[in-house]
C-alpha cells in the first residue's frame, strides 16, 4: 500500500531500497546532500562531487552516455545503456548492498537490480532543500505586494488557516416545529390552483421574458438562479429584501425603494422558485441594474460577460459593509458575490539573469481564456480523426488531447504555462537593479466556490482595424479537476514534481475534493459580433434544459457538449447535490 501525502502518492519502494534504508540509518542520503548542485536560474538538480566534475563510467571511461549512475554506497559511477550493456547493473550484481544509485544528471534514485527509477521522500526533500537554498539566495521580500517565494513561504494574509467548526446535526424540537409551521408557506400547496404543478420538473425552472434585446441578461440570470451557493443563500433568506429596504431605505419617505441589486435578486429568486411556471419579467432588475451601471444602460449591443461582472460589482457595492470583517481582497468576506466567485491568482516573475523571483497575489472573479492563436485550417475536426493522422503542430496540446481541437484544459494549461516575457516587456529585477528579461507564470492560489470561465471569442485585427467573432469550437468537460492549475501543483512541477509539501498544500485530505468541479450552466452565443443571441443550458438533476428567454425545453447532453460555449459555470463538487440525480435520459 502506498501512502498519500498532500494528495500525492509516495510509491512503494522496491525491496532493495527498503534494504538500503534499513541499513543506513535515519539519513540514508546524507552523503548525497552535499553533492546536489543546482544551476540558477530555476535549473535542474544534478549530482557532482565537485562543481566542475565530469562524471565518467568507471568501467568504460565514457562520459557521453545519456544515463550515468553514481552508486550511493561507494560513489562509483557507471553507465546504463540497455540493451547494449549496463555497467551499473554489473556493479550492483558484483557487490551486494550496492544496488541503489543516483542519476547524476537528473538527481533521480535508481535501483540497478530492478533496473528502474525509484522514489524516496527523504531524497526528494533534500533535493528541494538544495533548490530552495539556491532560490532564496536570490530572492527577498520587497515592496508592498511581493511576497517571499520560497517553498514553505508565507501565505497571503487572508488564507491563514481558519479553524474548522465541527459539524453538529440539528433538528427542531416540537416547540420549534410549531414556530416554523406558523411562519412559513409550504412550497407544495395543493390549494393553489394557479400553480402548474409538475413534481417531475425541477424547482426554479422558469422562463425569463425578453424585454427587448435583453437575452444577454436573461442568460446570465438563469445561470445565477441555479448557482448552488447563490440559490441557497437567497432561498435561506440570507438577504431579506423587506428588512433591507426598511432598514436602509426610505430616508426621505419617498415611494421609491432604495437601490439594492441584492434585494432585486431576492425578489427574483422568490418569483422563480415560487412554482409559477409562466415566464417572469426581470423588469425591476433591469431598472436597478441600469441605475447602477449607467454607462451600460442601452438596450443594444450588450455583452453577457460584461453584465455578469457589472452585476457582481453591483451586489458588492450595495451590500452594507461589515466593518468588523477583514476587507482583504479575495477573502470573500465582503459580500455574497465575492464569497462565491472570488478566487486568488498567484503570479511569479523570475529574472532570467539571476533567478530572483517576485510573487504577487491578486483576486479574480472569473477566468478569461484565450484560444491558441492562429490554428489555421486545423480548426475543423471530425471525430474520425485519430491521433495518428495529425501533424505535430502548435495546436496539439498535451499527450492526450485530440489534435486540432481546442479544449478548456488546454486553455488552462496555457494560462498556467511559464511565459517568457519579451524584450519589450522587461521586468525590473530587485536584485540586479536593472530591467531584465524574465519568465512569468500564473497559477491559482485559491479556487472560488464557483468558477466561471469566459472564452474570449473576440478577435481584433489591427491591420484591418475591425473585429470579428471567433466561432471556433472549444471542448469543455462536464467534470473538471483544477488541481494541476493550483499554485501548489505549479510550484511542485517547477521543482521537478518532488514528493514534498509545497506552499498551498492543505494538510487535510479534503483539499483533494475541493479542486474537483462540476459543470452546471453553459451560456452560449450564436450569431455575429454585433448581432446574435444568447441561450443558457442548465444541468439540473443530471438533465439538461435549454433556457432561451421565455422558452424552457429539455435537451440531450450531446447538444450541450457540441455547443459553442461562451461562459461555463462550474461549482465545487462537494456543493453539487447528486442525491437527486435521475437516470440520464440519453
Amino acid at each position: 500500500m502506498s501512502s498519500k501525502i498532500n494528495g500525492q502518492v509516495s510509491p512503494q519502494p522496491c525491496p532493495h531500497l527498503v534494504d538500503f534504508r534499513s541499513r543506513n540509518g535515519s539519513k540514508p542520503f546524507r552523503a548525497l546532500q552535499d553533492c546536489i548542485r543546482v544551476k540558477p536560474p530555476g535549473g535542474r538538480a544534478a549530482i557532482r562531487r565537485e562543481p566542475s566534475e565530469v562524471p565518467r563510467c568507471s568501467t568504460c571511461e565514457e562520459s557521453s552516455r545519456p544515463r550515468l549512475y553514481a552508486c550511493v554506497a561507494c560513489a562509483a559511477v557507471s553507465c546504463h545503456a540497455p540493451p547494449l550493456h549496463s555497467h551499473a547493473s554489473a556493479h550492483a550484481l558484483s557487490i551486494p548492498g550496492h544496488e541503489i544509485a543516483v542519476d547524476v544528471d537528473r538527481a533521480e534514485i535508481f535501483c540497478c537490480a530492478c533496473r528502474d527509477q525509484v522514489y524516496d521522500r527523504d531524497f526528494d526533500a533534500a533535493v528541494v532543500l538544495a533548490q530552495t537554498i539556491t532560490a532564496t539566495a536570490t530572492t527577498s521580500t520587497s515592496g508592498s505586494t511581493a511576497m517571499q517565494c520560497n517553498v514553505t513561504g508565507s501565505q497571503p494574509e487572508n488564507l491563514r488557516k481558519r479553524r474548522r467548526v465541527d459539524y453538529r446535526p440539528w433538528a427542531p424540537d416540537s416547540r420549534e416545529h410549531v414556530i416554523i409551521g406558523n411562519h412559513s408557506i409550504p412550497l407544495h400547496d395543493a390549494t393553489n390552483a394557479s400553480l402548474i404543478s409538475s413534481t417531475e420538473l425541477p424547482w426554479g425552472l422558469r422562463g425569463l421574458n425578453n424585454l427587448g434585446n435583453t437575452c444577454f441578461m436573461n442568460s446570465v440570470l438563469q445561470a445565477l438562479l441555479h448557482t448552488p451557493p447563490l440559490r441557497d443563500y437567497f432561498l435561506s433568506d440570507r438577504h431579506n429584501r423587506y428588512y433591507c429596504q426598511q432598514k436602509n431605505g426610505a430616508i426621505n419617505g419617498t415611494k421609491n425603494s432604495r437601490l439594492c441589486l441584492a434585494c432585486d435578486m431576492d425578489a427574483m429568486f422568490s418569483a422563480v422558485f415560487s412554482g409559477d411556471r409562466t415566464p417572469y419579467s426581470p423588469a425591476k432588475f433591469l431598472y436597478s441594474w441600469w441605475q447602477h451601471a449607467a454607462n451600460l444602460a442601452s438596450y443594444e449591443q450588450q455583452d453577457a460577460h460584461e453584465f455578469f461582472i457589472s452585476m457582481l460589482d453591483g451586489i458588492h457595492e450595495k451590500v452594507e459593509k461589515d466593518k468588523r470583517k477583514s476587507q482583504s481582497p479575495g477573502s470573500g468576506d465582503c459580500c455574497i458575490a465575492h464569497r462565491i466567485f472570488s478566487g486568488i491568482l498567484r503570479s511569479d516573475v523570475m529574472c532570467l539573469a539571476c533567478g530572483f523571483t517576485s510573487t504577487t497575489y491578486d483576486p479574480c472573479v472569473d477566468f478569461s481564456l484565450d484560444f491558441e492563436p492562429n490554428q489555421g485550417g486545423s480548426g475543423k475536426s471530425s471525430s474520425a480523426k485519430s491521433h495518428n493522422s495529425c501533424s505535430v503542430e502548435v495546436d496539439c496540446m498535451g499527450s492526450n488531447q485530440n489534435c486540432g481541437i481546442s479544449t478548456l484544459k488546454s486553455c488552462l494549461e496555457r494560462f498556467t504555462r511559464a511565459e517568457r516575457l519579451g524584450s519589450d516587456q522587461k521586468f525590473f529585477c530587485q536584485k540586479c537593479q536593472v530591467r531584465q528579461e524574465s519568465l512569468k507564470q500564473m497559477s491559482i492560489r485559491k479556487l472560488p466556490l464557483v468558477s466561471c470561465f469566459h472564452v474570449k471569442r473576440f478577435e481584433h485585427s489591427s491591420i484591418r482595424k475591425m473585429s470579428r467573432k471567433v466561432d471556433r469550437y472549444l471542448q469543455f468537460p462536464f467534470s473538471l479537476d483544477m488541481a494541476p492549475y493550483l499554485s501548489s501543483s505549479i510550484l511542485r512541477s517547477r521543482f521537478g514534481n518532488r514528493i514534498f509539501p509545497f506552499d498551498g498544500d492543505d494538510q487535510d485530505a479534503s483539499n483533494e475534493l475541493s479542486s474537483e468541479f462540476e459543470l452546471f450552466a453553459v451560456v452560449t452565443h450564436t450569431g455575429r459580433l454585433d448581432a446574435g443571441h444568447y441561450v443558457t443550458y442548465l444541468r439540473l438533476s443530471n438533465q439538461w434544459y435549454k433556457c432561451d428567454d421565455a422558452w424552457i425545453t429539455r435537451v440531450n447532453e450531446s447538444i450541450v457538449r457540441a455547443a459553442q460555449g461562451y461562459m461555463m459555470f462550474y461549482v465545487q463538487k462537494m456543493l453539487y447535490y447528486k442525491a437527486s440525480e435521475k437516470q440520464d435520459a440519453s
Partner: protein
Amino acid sequence: MSAPNEDNTQLSSHFFGDLLDSIIVDVASECHRIAKVGLDRNLEEEEEELRLSAQARASVADPSNSGEANNKYVVDIFGQTHPPVANEIFKCMNCGRSIAAGRFAPHLEKCMGKGRKARLKVTRSSTAAQNQYSRGSPVSTYSSYTNSTSTSRLSNGTPGFAGEEYSNGTYEGEP
C-alpha cells in the same frame, strides 16, 4: 581513410544522437515520476470527456438527427407557448405607464434618459475605441474587483449601430 568532411559529419551526427538520447531519457524520467507519484490520475476521465464531445459533435452534425427546435413556436416543457414578443403588461417603475414586457427595455431607455435616441451624448472617438482592445498578448487577463473594461464583447440585438455610445455619466435619479 575517410575524408575530413565525412569525419565531421559523422562526429556531428554522433553528438546529435547523444543529445537526442539524453532528451529522450529526460522526458522518460519525468513521465515515469509523474505516473509513479500519481499526478496523472485523471487521464481516463479526461479521455472519456474528449470522446463524448467528439461523439456529441458528430451526432449534432448528422442531418438525420432531429436537432433542437430553434424557432420561437415550440411548446416548452410546461406545455406553454409564448409569442415572439413577450406580451405581459406591467407598469414602468420610472414613469408609471403600462408597458408590454417585450418593449420594456427600449421604453425604459428613453424614460430614464439613456440611450442614443434620448438625447445628445458624447460619442467615443475611434482612438479611444482602439485602445480598449488588447494587443492579443498570449497571457490571459483576469478580472479584478473594479468593473473592468471588457476587451471581448459579444453583443446581442439588432445591428445597425456603428460604434458604442455612452451617456455622459450623470444619471437622473428617481423622478
